[in-house]
């Protein structure tokens, strides 16, 4: 690289094919390798910092919000499908929820003719309305994602109620 560093002990016998090679030729390899290593290490650390500092958590959260909406929509459809058309009929239908969203357990709560997903992360969650037959008086109960989930349709004197229940029947 620089002719002035001659005589610092790095010199080797000149290769037989090249005549009058500079005596510091080997230094360039060492400096080059060190430079390469430094650049690669710097690049990788920069990359990790960028990805895990901003992009990856954001993607995880967005994916979590999306999965949450889908889980809630599937829950709503499962509750709707569990109610038989016959007004005298009752039913118990199993439903499977993913155990975690974005690594955390969550709950689905029924209230006011709608289902609400409750998650530790505020961006994951939401409320979706239920449209059930007119004789269904109310929807109650809640599911925890880590338990077994069931939809129970029961008769009451003035119609039917739909309950989100947990555990094996």
């Amino acid at each position: 690289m620089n002719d002035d560093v001659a005589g610092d002990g790095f010199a080797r016998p000149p290769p037989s094919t090249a005549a009058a090679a500079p005596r510091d030729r080997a230094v360039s390899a060492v400096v080059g390798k060190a430079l390469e290593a430094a650049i690669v290490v710097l690049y990788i650390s920069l990359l990790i910092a960028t990805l895990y500092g901003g992009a990856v958590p954001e993607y995880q959260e967005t994916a979590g919000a999306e999965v949450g909406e889908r889980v809630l929509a599937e829950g709503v459809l499962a509750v709707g499908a569990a109610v038989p058309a016959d007004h005298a009929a009752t039913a118990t239908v199993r439903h499977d929820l993913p155990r975690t969203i974005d690594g955390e357990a969550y709950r689905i709560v029924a209230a006011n003719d709608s289902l609400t997903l409750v998650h530790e992360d505020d961006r994951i969650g939401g409320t979706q309305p239920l449209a059930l037959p007119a004789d269904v008086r109310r929807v109650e109960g809640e599911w925890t994602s880590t338990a077994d989930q069931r939809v129970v349709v029961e008769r009451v004197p003035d119609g039917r109620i739909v309950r989100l229940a947990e555990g094996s029947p």
Partner: protein
Amino acid sequence: MRRDRRDRGLSTLLSVVTAITVVTITLAGTMVLVEDAFRETARGDAERAVAVQASDRLVAADGPIAAEPNVLDAAELANLSAADLRAVGASERFAIAVRVDDRTVASVGDPDGGTTVRRIALVATPERVERTPALDGSADPRVTLPVRTDAVAMTVEPPPGTTVTAVRSGDRMVLRNASGLSGEFRIDTSPFRTLELAFETTGPLGSGDVTVGYEATRTERVTLAVTVEDRGRREGSGGGSA
């Protein structure tokens, strides 16, 4: 080996820089793709659930417009109101439009785009049918009704010289008058069997001497499309990755 031998160490440095550049460009491209993918998937599930539920309610027998499961009453379909749509899931957040064969019947919030759920349904229209069976002018003719119904109004006007003494349906005597049947008669029939009327006459009976009228239900197969747009998604449960 065009390059000067003294720069040999730098050639790998250059290739490292090239490799890093390529990796960076690839990564940036991937991130753009990921952003796009997230933006495109960031809608639809709530809409679809609402649309499926609304179409289920609309064709259910106890729903606002259905007479029987999957059979819509034409008169009630024409009167489908915004209140009915609110009862099946329309709200501030969810705009719903119901179309029958691409003709908008009712809408709340006038959705623009969104998710559409289509299903095949029947639209039943009650109608009065008057039919003049073709008779070949011979004695003792038979008439078969093309549809099943629970009551038939029959008019008999026999030509001069012919007396209709009885009308049978299978083994059952429906009308009988030895001195002659003439005028309008109401016949109760079974809606579960095809009706064949056999006339007992003393002479020929031609086309136009007998007319039958009955209530029939005309059913028409249509595509019921329910379109739902989720208006609250963007502000509400946090959409997009931007």
